[in-house]
């Protein structure tokens, strides 16, 4: 049945019942909606460096989607990299789409206009593959809205080979279970290579039904195809594991990595309207060696791979010339760790004087070196200096493995104020494992102490901005065994902070607990969450990251309606999924995915946390997290992993160096 329909589609589009979802939408038709909406520039494309390929000149068409506003989606660098890699291929075209804001969604639904791609104005449903970013959990309900606005059935089992293959990927895919009913497959890990393998294979299966198409993809490493696995639960409603339904289905599914960082996209799309990160981007380093125990990115992006200073400098000038940007942002998880960062910035400052080209360096450490780097970049323009101590007491910093001592922090703050900064921004988490009210009060004490230093050195205009987020125990981290703090605990600790951070010179911001608890639910949930997410979306939940649009009532109602069936009650669901501290032998819904960092290592690190022990930065000494074991054959010269003790030096360094640039 299905393959007949597919043949029909291949032969002629006119017989396809969905043909209105295949032709480009005339510009005049799009234009009729634009006077009704805010920021219409989000919906029109036409950017410099956007790539327009003739539709019929290629064999595979991919639409890359970020399920939130254009302003945010255009700032997502992962999609820029894929756009570049895919469009380099003559037989592939890649276009972009984003989720419109609620006013545009309403206008489109009223006029029956499907979601379209910004290059060709073709409906998203006309593409062969729709790749949707699952970068973080607040994108999940938006993903359903995006599929629905595209005119696609949201559940994978309701779609067939006439519909685009729907693939997900990004950090949120490290627990894909809550969304596994909606996607055909997830790319686990770095997509640069596997996406081409996927396209290649998929393009040869056009005449097959969807299920058979997916079966042919099973032996590509790094793809997780949820329909070929099923999940079990215990009588107590806890999760009991996932098992493959086909012998070919891999177990575990191992994360893909690239041995060498892909070339930097040079001809980056220059948006016509202002976006969140409106600048050129160079990924100077991937991965992080600090081992902060709360940080998922630090685990799932290992190993550290550096781009050489020489290449970065070349990229800077090429991007500036190709885009006209006056600012280039260096992307990494810990910029000051780059081994050549100092000479890199010095060289750039010399070579760029008079060019009106600035640089931004995110994620600096709290140390004198970082302050010096930041000063070099800021010049006379010192807006605010950022510290992320995350915890205010020594004991808690030992638990989270953030190795900063309070006296050092104060000395470095002195340095910051001496050099002319007047605003210090501090990032902290509350609800951390082992945290007490005293730990939280210490945040206020530290902020006051820092303000006193600032006032002494720079005057009464000194401002301390304290940003408080609530800790969520993320999958694939040493803290995956920890509990998520309940509403009362967080409310009490927020009040403690507000009471003690009043008055002139302090600004406090925080994440609202209900939103964070939905994040915790979605990041820790299993397959039973699919129905709840779908129901919440039906009831109006979307834009979960947006204060002005998100809808707690929809979530509460979805939980009330559906939790009894799959968990017994809402309370059980919350307890089982979020509030429970886990035992060593807990089976997690994401255990079938292997990031390369082994569970054994994470468990040891969790035990070290409970014993209050630091684990040193692994640049100096390898702690055998598992990366080198699992990816030894991909090791390249720019990896910053030390040689494990007793092992021979890598023999393929020379080769890897030569392979660097195709």
């Amino acid at each position, binding site marked *: 049945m299905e393959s007949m329909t597919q043949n029909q589609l291949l032969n002629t589009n006119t017989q396809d019942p969905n043909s209105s979802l295949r032709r480009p939408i005339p510009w005049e038709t799009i234009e009729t909606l634009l006077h009704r909406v805010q920021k219409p520039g989000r919906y029109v494309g036409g950017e410099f460096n956007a790539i327009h390929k003739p539709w019929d000149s290629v064999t595979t068409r991919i639409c890359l989607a970020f399920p939130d506003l254009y302003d945010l989606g255009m700032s997502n660098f992962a999609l820029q990299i894929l756009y570049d890699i895919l469009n380099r291929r003559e037989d592939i075209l890649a276009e972009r789409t984003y989720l419109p804001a609620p006013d545009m969604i309403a206008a489109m639904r009223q006029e029956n206009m499907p979601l379209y791609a910004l290059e060709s104005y073709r409906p998203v449903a006309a593409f062969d593959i729709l790749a949707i970013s699952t970068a973080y959990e607040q994108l999940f309900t938006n993903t359903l809205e995006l599929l629905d606005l595209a005119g696609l059935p949201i559940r994978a089992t309701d779609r067939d080979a006439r519909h685009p293959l729907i693939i997900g990927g990004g950090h949120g895919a490290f627990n894909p279970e809550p969304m596994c009913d909606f996607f055909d497959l997830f790319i686990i890990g770095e997509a640069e290579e596997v996406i081409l393998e996927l396209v290649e294979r998929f393009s040869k299966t056009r005449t097959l039904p969807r299920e058979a198409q997916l079966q042919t993809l099973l032996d590509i490493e790094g793809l997780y195809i949820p329909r070929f696995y099923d999940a079990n639960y215990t009588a107590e409603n806890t999760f009991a594991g996932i098992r493959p339904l086909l012998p070919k289905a891999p177990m575990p599914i191992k994360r893909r990595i690239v041995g060498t960082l892909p070339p930097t996209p040079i001809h980056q799309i220059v948006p*016509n309207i202002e976006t969140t990160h409106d600048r050129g981007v160079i990924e100077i380093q991937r991965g992080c060696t600090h081992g902060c125990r709360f940080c998922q990115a630090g685990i799932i992006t290992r190993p550290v791979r550096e781009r050489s200073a020489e290449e970065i400098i070349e990229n800077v000038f090429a991007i500036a010339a190709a885009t006209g940007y006056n600012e280039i942002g260096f992307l990494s998880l810990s910029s000051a760790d780059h081994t050549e960062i100092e000479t890199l910035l010095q060289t750039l400052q010399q070579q760029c004087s008079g060019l009106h080209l600035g640089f931004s360096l995110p994620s600096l450490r709290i140390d004198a070196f970082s302050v010096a780097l930041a000063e070099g970049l800021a010049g006379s323009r010192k807006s605010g200096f950022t510290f992320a101590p995350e915890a205010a007491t020594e004991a808690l910093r030992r638990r989270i493995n953030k190795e900063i001592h309070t006296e050092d922090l104060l000395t470095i703050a002195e340095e910051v104020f001496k050099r002319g900064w007047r605003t210090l921004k501090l990032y902290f988490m509350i609800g951390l494992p082992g945290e007490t009210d005293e730990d939280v009060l210490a945040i206020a004490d530290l902020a006051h102490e820092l303000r006193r230093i600032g006032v002494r050195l720079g005057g009464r205009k000194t401002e301390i901005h304290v940003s408080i987020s609530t800790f969520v125990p993320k999958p694939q981290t040493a803290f995956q065994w920890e509990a998520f703090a309940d509403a009362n605990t967080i409310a009490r600790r927020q009040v403690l902070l507000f009471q003690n951070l009043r008055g002139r010179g302090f600004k406090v911001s925080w994440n609202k607990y209900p939103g964070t608890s939905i994040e915790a639910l979605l990041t820790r949930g299993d397959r039973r969450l699919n129905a709840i997410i779908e129901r919440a979306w039906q009831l109006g939940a979307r834009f979960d990251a947006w204060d002005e649009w998100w809808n707690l009532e929809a979530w509460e109602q979805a939980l009330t309606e559906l939790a009894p069936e799959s968990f017994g009650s809402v309370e059980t669901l919350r307890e089982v999924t979020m509030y429970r501290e886990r035992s060593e032998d807990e089976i997690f819904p994401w255990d079938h995915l292997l990031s390369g960092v082994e569970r054994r290592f994470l468990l040891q690190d969790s035990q070290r946390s409970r014993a209050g022990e630091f684990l040193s930065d692994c640049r100096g000494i390898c702690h055998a997290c598992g990366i080198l074991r699992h990816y030894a054959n991909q090791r390249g010269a720019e990896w910053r992993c030390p040689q494990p003790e007793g092992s021979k030096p890598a023999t393929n360094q020379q080769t890897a160096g030569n392979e660097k640039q195709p």
Partner: protein
Amino acid sequence: MNEQNPTTLRMRLKFATSGPLAYVSVLDLGRLWERALRRAAIPLRYSLGFNPRPKLQFAAPLPTGCGSEADWLDIWLTEPREPAEIATALVGTLPPDLHVIEITWVPEDAPALSELMQAVTYRVLLQDVDVTELKAACATLLKEENVLRAKRGRRRHQHYDLRQLIETLNVTPALEPWTAALEMRLRAQAGATGRPDEVLSALGLADVPRRCTRTGLFLSSPADAPSP
């Protein structure tokens, strides 16, 4: 082309925008021009201070949702360039819907374009609007002595008189998919600038699908002014 002092470092670019670019704001358009000129390696003059900006001056801000057939932008350079050199450098560096029509030298001490602005003409193509009815509505509007409308933004509790800003309104039939074309000439002076969407609202056409294009800028002093 103007026969002006070729050593001047001030150049005037006449440009047009259409399609997607009609939907950017005037701030976006400034940024977009800066980037296009940087890509073309035009030696722009930057302001001093801690947030240096290139010196660019538009004649009159183009409303979001409005394309243009004839707008002007003055740019300042650090070293002299022939208009033809700039035109050549801009080939391939402009976004798809931005077109340069003419480049001329302008004396450094010429008044700012915005000081010379007198009036702007727009053409608005409308869907599902009857030409006869629209003509009648325009006639009624022009007969009014005052048309009070709320200001925008922070001063929205205050009113201004839109009628004083409308110089002419003219309605003609239009080609598919449009039904009517409304040509308007609005005053455009400091503190007294008419906006086409305000006129449409006053005519009860706020929600009608439209395409708006600025068709001309009119300046006060013909000696310094470029031809529209």
